[in-house]
């Protein structure tokens, strides 16, 4: 049960409009205080447990996303926050957008909304904790996502 008591979060902004990011940061304010659950907003992926991704993935940032995901030591959980991170949102058919985060890396929990309220994000983090626990018990390792060279859309 030790993983669930101290989840450290790394926040990755993939092409987000900043709406979700402000809500993620709002979770740390005195009103919502995510640190009650031991949540820390950590800077380095090497010490993170939960990867919070906001925004849709595009061809510019896809390798950055993969790189950060690969650097997080197991057990790890990915939380997609907001409509864009879940499905691509209103940008889903843009020429430069690949889609939701789950197109690139395995996502464990989704928080829908544009943008989701801090309560919903905290709920998502708490939901991710039980997944983190079960991954730790089953010794489930995150697969290494291969980095390709320049990602180019096939129809471009």
């Amino acid at each position, binding site marked *: 049960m*030790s*993983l669930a*008591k*101290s989840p*450290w979060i790394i926040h990755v902004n993939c092409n987000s409009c900043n709406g979700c990011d402000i809500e993620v940061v709002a979770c740390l304010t*005195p009103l919502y*205080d995510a*640190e*009650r*659950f*031991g949540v*820390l*907003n*950590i*800077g*380095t992926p*090497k*010490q993170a*447990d939960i990867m919070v991704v906001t925004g849709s993935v595009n061809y510019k940032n896809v390798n950055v996303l993969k790189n950060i995901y690969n*650097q997080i*030591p*197991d*057990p790890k959980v990915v939380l997609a926050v907001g409509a864009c991170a879940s499905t691509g949102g209103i940008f889903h058919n843009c020429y430069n957008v690949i889609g939701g985060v789950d197109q690139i890396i395995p996502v464990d929990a989704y928080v829908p909304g544009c943008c989701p309220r801090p309560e919903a994000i905290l709920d998502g983090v708490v939901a991710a904790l039980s997944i983190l626990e079960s991954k*730790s018990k089953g010794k489930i390792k995150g697969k290494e996502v291969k980095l390709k060279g320049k990602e180019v859309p096939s129809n471009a």
Partner: protein
Amino acid sequence: MNSLDIAKIVLVLIGAPILGCLLAGIDRKLTSRLQGRVGPPLLQPYYDVRKLFEKDNVVVNKSQNLYVVMYVIFVVLSLLMLVFEADILMIIFVYTISSVALIVGGMSTGSPYARIGSSREIMAILSYEPILIFYAIAIYMLTGTFKLSALDEASTPLLMYIPLIFIGMLFVMNIKFKKSPFDFSTSHHAHQELVKGMFTEYSGPGMAGIEIGHFYEYTFLLGLMFVFWKINILMGLILALIAFLFVIVMDNITARVYWQWMFKTSWTVMLLISVINIVYLYIYEIKII
């Protein structure tokens, strides 16, 4: 070495991290209360360490782990020397090696953030080391020996004659606890510009080792403050507690400064008041034994 000494060693090895863990918990709880938050449970640092042991250890090079071990060993060694009332000068030197181990560990990873953090930590050592040395010199001038055991026979506490060095030591505490305004080598709060400073490339058990080392270090640093009123255990503990609370309050009411600011303040104001204190001891030829 008799059985009492062995009991003392065991007590320090087990008791010090528990005390340091509680201090870190109080620190986080108090900080969040000062910010109007509920804050994590008191044992949160313990949960963090336990979690870090469950994670994979991802390292850039294998020597990184060795530096963590060196850090913990030398911190524990300096704490043991303090408990056994050894030579204060030797304690300071051994303690410096522990900081150097962390710096070399940060440098060895090659990460630019770790390098920035490490070079800033070097500046921190440059800033606080002279004050520590003056502290040792003051003890020598007052008792005629560097041995801390001599302080047991002192007639008056150290604080009575070296209050200015006490202020300097509070400054040192702020640097060594790596708290704001001097938290630029590594901290949770500087992650936008520094990621995690010196410890950027540590993960899982490696990071847990550093955290445990910090618990020992907290106890050691407060032990240095305890020495100011060593003839009365209760007053010594109160002094250590005051220093600890001072560090937390300073952490919450100040913003992070440039390392240049710390360097200038320490080498002008803090060094000057330490020298004034030493000169005062020299002119009046004060002895407490």
